[in-house]
């Protein structure tokens, strides 16, 4: 089975999950005895395309057009679907990123190719691909297979590995998309970048705070710890609903799902809705006064103590240890 991987770039840089998608597609194609081609869309993207070789792409199709500098749902759908139609692969891999989750359904409808979204594992079996995906906010795992002729999968960021091999460069084919004015029925006209800390879904480390912090200004303790670790700041639903923190920091069933390598839950009791959003983190640390808090049931390391006492000490110790 031949596989196409959508390699997402923004501002002329590949996202980490683009590398994850390409490498997962490479592994799946190898297991099924097929080829893997990466596709990148944007302005002047042929310049960055060779770098995907390090992640297993021997061949990259660079779809270039100055009008594609910013994302456009409609134009990207048309341009990418056209490549997929020409290449006629057996499967297409997307990242389950904000762009991938927007793009993949439209491509799915265009091509009549069903999509298994937000997969956390994909394995080859009997010449087919079987995907594992969390459902009910991670309270259950579904094993699924796609039965349409072209099978599409999107991959949860931070779950699949991306290891760069030295020196490999991909061969790049540059194509110009056939796009008319109508294909830009929706388009991004500007991007507002949040300054400062990384996004909770992309960060390797997330430090989250809950209602036990007692007041919004006490989130300074969370921010200080996050900054010494280069981490993102997360929040429980309670503190977002109380207006202490912005919506885009909320982790849980009605917020973001995160899979960092380290999740530090501070003064968060661990309601089932919160656990749903972070239980796939590789290591979990909990700091909470209440020894019976459910968060301790899933934490790898816990301190049953007061955040006002523990967090300043932890920030100080890390500053020392990490030489900051």
């Amino acid at each position, binding site marked *: 089975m031949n596989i196409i991987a959508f390699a997402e770039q923004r501002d002329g840089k590949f996202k980490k999950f683009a590398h994850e998608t390409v490498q997962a597609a490479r592994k799946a194609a190898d297991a099924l005895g097929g080829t893997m081609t990466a596709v990148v869309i944007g302005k002047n993207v042929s310049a960055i395309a060779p770098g995907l070789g390090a992640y297993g792409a021997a061949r990259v199709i660079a779809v270039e057009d100055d009008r594609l500098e910013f994302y456009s749902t409609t134009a990207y759908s048309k341009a990418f679907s056209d490549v997929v139609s020409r290449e006629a692969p057996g499967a297409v891999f997307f990242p389950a990123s904000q762009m991938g989750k927007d793009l993949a*359904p439209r491509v*799915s409808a265009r091509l009549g190719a069903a*999509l298994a979204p937000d997969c956390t594992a994909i394995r080859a079996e009997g010449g087919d691909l079987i995907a594992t995906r969390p459902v009910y906010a991670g*309270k259950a795992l579904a*094993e699924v297979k796609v039965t349409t002729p072209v099978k599409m999968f999107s991959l949860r960021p931070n779950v699949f590995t991306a290891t760069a091999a030295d020196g490999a460069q991909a061969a790049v084919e540059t194509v110009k998309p056939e796009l008319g004015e109508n294909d830009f029925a*929706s388009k991004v006209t500007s991007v507002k970048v949040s300054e400062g800390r990384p996004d909770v879904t992309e960060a390797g480390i997330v430090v989250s705070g809950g209602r036990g912090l007692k007041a919004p200004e006490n989130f300074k303790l969370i921010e200080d710890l996050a900054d010494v*670790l280069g981490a993102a700041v997360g929040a429980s639903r309670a503190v977002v609903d109380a207006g202490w923190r912005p919506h885009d920091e909320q982790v849980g069933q009605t917020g973001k799902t995160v899979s960092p390598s*380290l999740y530090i839950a501070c003064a968060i009791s661990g309601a089932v809705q919160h656990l749903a959003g972070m239980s796939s983190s590789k290591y979990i640390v909990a700091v909470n006064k209440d020894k019976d808090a459910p968060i301790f049931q899933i934490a790898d390391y816990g301190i049953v103590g007061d955040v006002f006492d523990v967090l300043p000490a*932890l920030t100080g110790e890390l500053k020392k240890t990490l030489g900051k």
Partner: protein
Amino acid sequence: MKIVACINHVPDTETKVKVGADGKTIDPAGVNYMLNPYDEYAVEAGLKLKEQYGGETIALSLGPDANKETLRKALAMGVDKALLIKDDSVRDSLSLARAIAEELREMKPDCVLFGKQSIDYYDEQVPGLVAEFLGYPSVSVAVKLEAKDGNVTCDREIEGGHEVVETSFPVVISAQKGLNAPRYPSLKGIMAAKTKPIEERQAKPFPSGVEVLGISKPPAKSAGKIVGTDASAVPELVRLLQEEAKVI
């Protein structure tokens, strides 16, 4: 303006999931259902557009009779009409979106609103599928929506920021938390919703493209190590994170 909010009836967020006897769906026993939380933002956005443009708001839900409860909630919030596309089968998103698009094609709405995803299967793909089937532009995970004449400007959430998207009616928009503050149904609204008719049509069948082979509970994580009870445990915690977990 004709505004349709597509809403779903989902297990509430407190639900403790048990695998059903078929091994492919959850055991429905003891599960309470609710209006999908993100869909409240979609309904509110629809009501606001009607305040701005006039016209009518319609809540549409595809599913069994039980979905009427969720349609009544939308009626109580103030939508003009409710439509149940009746369906007792289990569908994947592709099949569901085809059936919804089939209905919408006849209704010719100016704006179709969804919650960004249902909190049951977490597919987050029906809005985009429906938009493509209708040939409408779409904006997903909208956290801001401004309409002027025929033009629509949305902020959509991306990693580490927002994209500003410009498009025009007719359009499909999926709502993210933060788009607005959904209104609480008034007592009058709740009373009126009880007697408002819910129109029913039979959903058209379409094949599914994703087959569920089985569902299971994720492997239970065992509780870890309690390192201490105050700040004196911090050096040991840092040591574990560096030497055992190797994450910092």
